[in-house]
């Protein structure tokens, strides 16, 4: 046990000293902040777009369309500006298009010296409006949506008014919404609330955390063993400690690293939760994590899943002197790891579909899918059965990986998949 802990401590502290560790520690909070606030900041920092409307309709529907746009558009996003004076009610649509194109292109400036960002040439009538939108931002669909929405509202009002419905009645009709209440036998009080959905969100979060820890931990382990192999340290290690001690020490050390990263992120998340979430939500989330044995199931699936994947990556590393050599097996492993992510959202929405139930019995996917399905309360026999299967699978994988590790550590041949599996059989002996 002493050797195992010494190897674990070396693994932990050697990686702790690297800049990569501190980068990975900071990357999630920074990425979260950028992901959350980046688009908002980008929108806020962008100047307000100026848009004008040339009303060439026979029913003079322009002001009505403008009114809807003003009512529905974010004032920071769009500001309506008067038409350039050269366009009048006598201007033909073709002339208006030509004139406004030169403004939008920046060839001409508005009387206040600013550039026009977008322009609409409205033709037709309130029965059948036609709009030509000029804009410089081809990729942004906001303005075209806004114009379509405003035009549609005006045409609808016109048709309903023609059918004899007065505007006040129409406004009342538009505001009518049914009171839909959601009930579920799985909800604590029968009626579904956010509190009842929290375990599902928590399960999704835990499954994702497990996936992340496996991916990160496996990557660190692989690189660590490759470094030891290329630095010729593995043979000395093998003469100083048993294979289970080396494997166990490395896996434990990297689990400690992943746990440290997770603890820091969880602390940052909790601080954010207490500062920004509605009162009561942190307590409800805590209760959700403790409910339905979520954390216990997570812990068990984590241990088995992490052991299984980590052992495989350590064994692969023992055969490789460069990460490139490892790619032949790591590539397919990464594809396998991507599959549960595809099904993770389905596991939350419809956890009992036959495909998910079947995939939950495939060991490489079991830890992730069963953790995600835990909140929906799968049958006890399924939980116990998959846990027993994972225990047996991870024990077998650890044993085989140990044999492959020994064979790889003493081998000087380049890594290939047949050699890897031969190593499992011969254990280098």
């Amino acid at each position, binding site marked *: 046990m*002493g*050797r195992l802990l*010494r*190897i674990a401590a*070396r693994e932990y502290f*050697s990686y702790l*000293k*690297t800049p990569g560790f501190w980068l990975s520690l900071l990357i999630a909070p920074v990425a979260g902040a950028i992901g959350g606030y980046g688009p908002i900041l980008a929108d806020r920092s962008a100047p307000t777009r100026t848009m004008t409307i040339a009303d060439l309709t026979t029913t003079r529907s322009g002001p009505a369309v403008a009114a809807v746009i003003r009512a529905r558009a974010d004032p920071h996003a769009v500001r309506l500006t008067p038409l350039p004076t050269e366009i009048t009610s006598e201007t033909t649509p073709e002339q208006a298009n030509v004139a406004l194109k030169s403004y939008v292109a920046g060839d001409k400036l508005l009387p206040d010296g600013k550039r026009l960002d977008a322009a609409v040439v409205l033709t037709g009538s309130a029965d059948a409006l036609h709009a030509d939108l000029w804009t410089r931002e081809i990729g942004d669909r906001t303005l075209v949506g806004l114009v379509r929405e405003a035009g549609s509202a005006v045409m609808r009002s016109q048709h309903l008014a023609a059918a004899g419905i007065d505007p006040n009645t129409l406004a009342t009709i538009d505001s009518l919404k049914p009171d839909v209440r959601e009930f579920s036998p799985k909800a604590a009080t029968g009626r579904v609330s956010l509190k009842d959905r929290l375990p599902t969100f928590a399960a999704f979060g835990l499954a994702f955390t497990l996936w992340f820890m496996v991916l990160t931990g496996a990557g660190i382990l692989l690189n660590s063993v490759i*470094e*030891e192999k290329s*630095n*010729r*340290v593995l*043979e*000395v*290690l*093998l*003469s*100083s*400690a*048993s294979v289970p001690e080396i494997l166990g020490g490395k896996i434990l050390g990297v689990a400690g690293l992943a746990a440290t990263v997770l603890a820091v992120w969880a602390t940052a998340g909790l601080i954010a939760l207490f500062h920004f979430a509605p009162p009561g939500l942190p307590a409800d989330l805590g209760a959700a994590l403790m409910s339905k044995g979520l954390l216990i199931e997570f812990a068990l699936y984590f241990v088995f899943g992490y052991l299984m994947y980590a052992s495989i990556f350590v064994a692969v590393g023992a055969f490789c002197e460069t990460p490139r050599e490892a790619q032949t097996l790591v590539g397919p492993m990464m594809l396998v790891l991507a599959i549960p992510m595809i099904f993770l959202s389905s596991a939350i929405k419809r956890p009992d579909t036959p495909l998910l139930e079947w995939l939950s019995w495939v060991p490489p996917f079991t830890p992730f899918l069963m953790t995600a399905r835990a909140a929906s309360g799968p049958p006890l026999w399924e939980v116990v059965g998959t846990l027993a299967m994972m225990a047996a699978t991870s024990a077998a994988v650890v044993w085989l990986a140990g044999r492959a590790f*020994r064979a790889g550590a*003493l081998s000087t041949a380049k890594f290939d998949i047949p050699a890897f599996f031969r190593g499992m059989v011969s254990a*280098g*002996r």
Partner: protein
Amino acid sequence: MVAALALDGVSKRYGAFQAVNDLSFQVQPGSIFGFLGPNGAGKTTTLRMVLGLVEPTAGKIDVLGAADARKVRDRIGFLPEERGLYKRMTPVEAVVFFAGLKGVSSAVAKKRGIAMLEAQGLGEAMRKPMKSLSKGMSQKVQIITALAHEPELVILDEPFSGLDPVNQQSLETLIRDLAKRGATVVFSTHVMSHAERLCERVVLMAKGKKAFDGTVDEARAAAPRRLVLEGAASDEDIRALPGVEALTTDEAGVRTASLTRGAAAHDTMRAAFERGLAFSRFEVREPSLHDAFIVWTGGAA
């Protein structure tokens, strides 16, 4: 006396390749033992079997009284042929880590490590990361990591390779000191001169088989003594001298006569004087371990 290391009929086969074939020898405690042979002779495989890293296909290995070296790994020090340490570790950290794996407390390992590093002239380098050290320095550190737990049996696989002559000399001194304090040293090499200077007993290996097992003198006795001759005497006269078995002449005209096994050089010299043969040089050259190796292995490499 119970042997520190005993191999009995040990073989190792990898598929169709016979790496080691029916190898038996014993190493007495406190001795310096040379395990000699060219590259590919099966030395590293044998040492890995001794350490329990590789399992023999057949035979029995007894290490420090245990049938499995892994049970006594704390009492063994090992320097592998392919050397390396963690690049970001300092020498002191490396010694503490590896001695720690052998059951030495961190405080004791640090104290011993500092003393040993200073004794090897690494006082200034011992707190620098390994990656900043020269190759020679790194090798010294690695040897110290193999010895800091004061092992009873020290196994060194090609310890002299990569060292400059000065460091080779200092390693020879270190090996002698280890034996003086009672440790058993087994080292492999393909350079016979080190073994000649250090070892009491040697095993010569060729193509996975033991070619010789005995003392250095016994090994050399199998090789012919040579006489290096310069002078006016004819080849016929030299060949006719007692004990002369063969005669060769090099490009400079220097002739070398091989003596038959057991022939005394002074008998040949006396006969040359009695026959009035004129020599400006008459030099007796004792056989080296290298010569012995050629004889014992029949030139196999």
